[in-house]
């Protein structure tokens, strides 16, 4: 079995990193010198790869960036895309601080609701709701291109959460954040599943990434542990390779697999058929 501790460590590392930037930026704005940890300042928009995606249109057409977006966002976008080409949506499952927060809340939800946790929305409904991410992505990209402003910025829950003390936060954004966090108590990674535009992009790469999660049907003991553990309710036990756009590549299915190695792996290439 693969221990999930490495993933937790990576998640916490990036969560703390973003928190440091957020606190530093807030300290800069408010003049709280004691909290200025970093010698430079970076707002949260500069640390989100989605900003790079949002500004692509204006960059290509006008050679300008959308307001509040900086070149760091573009760099992070490329980093995220490079990662997606290699590993699929691993950014979501291993790196995204907002996803990490939702997972933490999910543990609380699990304690509160037990087996009912992550089962409130029927699988079929969830299956269609996940396409809402693409609709939102399209709207965001369109409006950003139209207005030249960070359309999503005014209601992005990631930004709202980490810049909550900032004067830029609107009531709408706070409501969206509250609903998202509350939903995380009932449904694991609700935002990632149904609304995240960056997740929508990363998820597309699950279909073409170099490494995919593959199941060796010949060796599989059909315990369905992997399906039960999947936060996105993908039926891993019934598939030979996981290319669903909703897969976070978190590896929980891999950690849950009790069978010997080479049964469920994150790998490149197919399993040979064994008779």
């Amino acid at each position, binding site marked *: 079995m693969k221990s999930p501790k490495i993933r937790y460590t990576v998640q916490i590392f990036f969560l703390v990193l973003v928190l440091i930037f957020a606190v530093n930026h807030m300290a800069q704005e408010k003049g709280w010198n004691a909290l200025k940890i970093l010698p430079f300042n970076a707002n949260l928009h500069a640390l989100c790869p989605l900003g790079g995606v949002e500004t692509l249109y204006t960059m290509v057409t*006008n050679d300008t960036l959308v307001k509040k977006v900086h070149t760091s966002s573009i760099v992070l976008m490329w980093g995220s895309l490079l990662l997606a080409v290699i590993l699929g949506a691993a950014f979501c499952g291993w790196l995204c601080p907002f996803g990490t927060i939702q997972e933490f809340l999910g543990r609380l939800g699990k304690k509160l609701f037990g087996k009912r946790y992550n089962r409130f929305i029927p699988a079929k409904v969830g299956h269609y709701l996940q396409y809402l991410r693409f609709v939102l992505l399209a709207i965001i990209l369109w409006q950003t291109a139209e207005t030249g402003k960070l359309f999503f910025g005014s209601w992005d829950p990631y930004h709202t959460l980490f810049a909550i003390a900032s004067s*830029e936060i609107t009531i709408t954004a706070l409501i969206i954040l509250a609903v998202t966090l509350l939903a995380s108590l009932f449904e694991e990674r609700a935002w990632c599943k149904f609304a995240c535009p960056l997740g929508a992009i990363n998820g597309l790469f699950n279909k073409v990434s170099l490494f995919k999660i593959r199941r060796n049907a010949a060796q599989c003991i059909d315990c369905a542990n992997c399906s039960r553990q999947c936060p996105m309710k993908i039926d891993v036990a019934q598939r030979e390779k996981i290319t669903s756009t909703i897969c976070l590549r978190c590896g929980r299915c891999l950690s849950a697999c009790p069978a010997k190695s080479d049964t469920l792996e994150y790998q490149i290439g197919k399993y040979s058929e064994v008779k």
Partner: protein
Amino acid sequence: MKKLQFYHIALIIFLCFGLTIGISQLTGYWATGPKKEGTTLLTNGAGQYNPYDLRGSNTIDDVLTIFNIPKEDFYTGLNIPSDVCGTTFLKDLNSAEETTVESTITHGGVESVREFVANYIGYTGTEQEAKNQQNATNQATPTDQSVATSQPVTTSQPAYEGAEKSVNTETPAIDSNSKAPNSTDIGAKKGSTTTQQNRTAHDKETQQGQQTTEPKSQTASSSTTPTPVKPVEPKKTSSENTDKPTTATAAEGTTKTNQEPGAEHIADTHNGTGQGQQGSSPSISTSTTGRDPHGTTTLAEVYSWGITQKALEETYHIKFADLNLTPEKTLRDLADAVGVNMPQVKQVIESLLK
């Protein structure tokens, strides 16, 4: 068939981001904030400043002075409590739902202010046009900029909001009442210049490079970087603006003379804007090579140009000693003491220099 362990995944993640960030930093591409300091408020062809270029880092005072909006109208129109001080950043105004302006304002803070100002002044450009103009000027090379004298210079930097820089504050405060003796003059921006472009444009206009005042860069206040000064004042003039017919510089191609006064006026008035200008005062003016009176030009420097104290006293019918106008005092101090605005002082100085 190659499989990954979890530590491989972690390594790949760090490599992907480490490489991209590292390469971008080495090439100088990486930036988490505004690269250039200051953006200009563009004017449209009619000489109006572009309200859609207001930023969250602008203050209320900036808006009032640049667009010549009476404080009462502004406060009432946006339902801002009267005890909110003029140095409040626009981004701190969260009152979309409170605004009484009948427009399509749907956002709070800066958006509301932009819409309100656009409606109030009857801004003739659309936001899209303003954006296009911004983009066009951003793309222009320095040489292009120098030719387009009527174009307000802008940073070539993509429009972004540098809140921490609060750049725009510096935009010309057309506020003759401003009393910020130490505030830097418009010209004065150490280094601010948003751009070379500004200087080049300006130089071309002046042909002598003397009017550096106009480097349309506004001295940024200490906290942030200077912003380029806007060229001419908006058409809409208040009693304050008047020294010269400013308007449509664009139309006229903005001669130096046209611009100067306006610019000077702007420069001059600009001072007040909230951003704690003072710190930055090492005004440029004093560093100019020619005889180029600025608000921060000291009387000692004026005397070094051959203008005597007596001449100034006779002109203004005052006694410097009575008003404590020592040589260390600036032309701004003189203007304040005498009760005139800076362009008038400048005119006097220039006429005495001839």
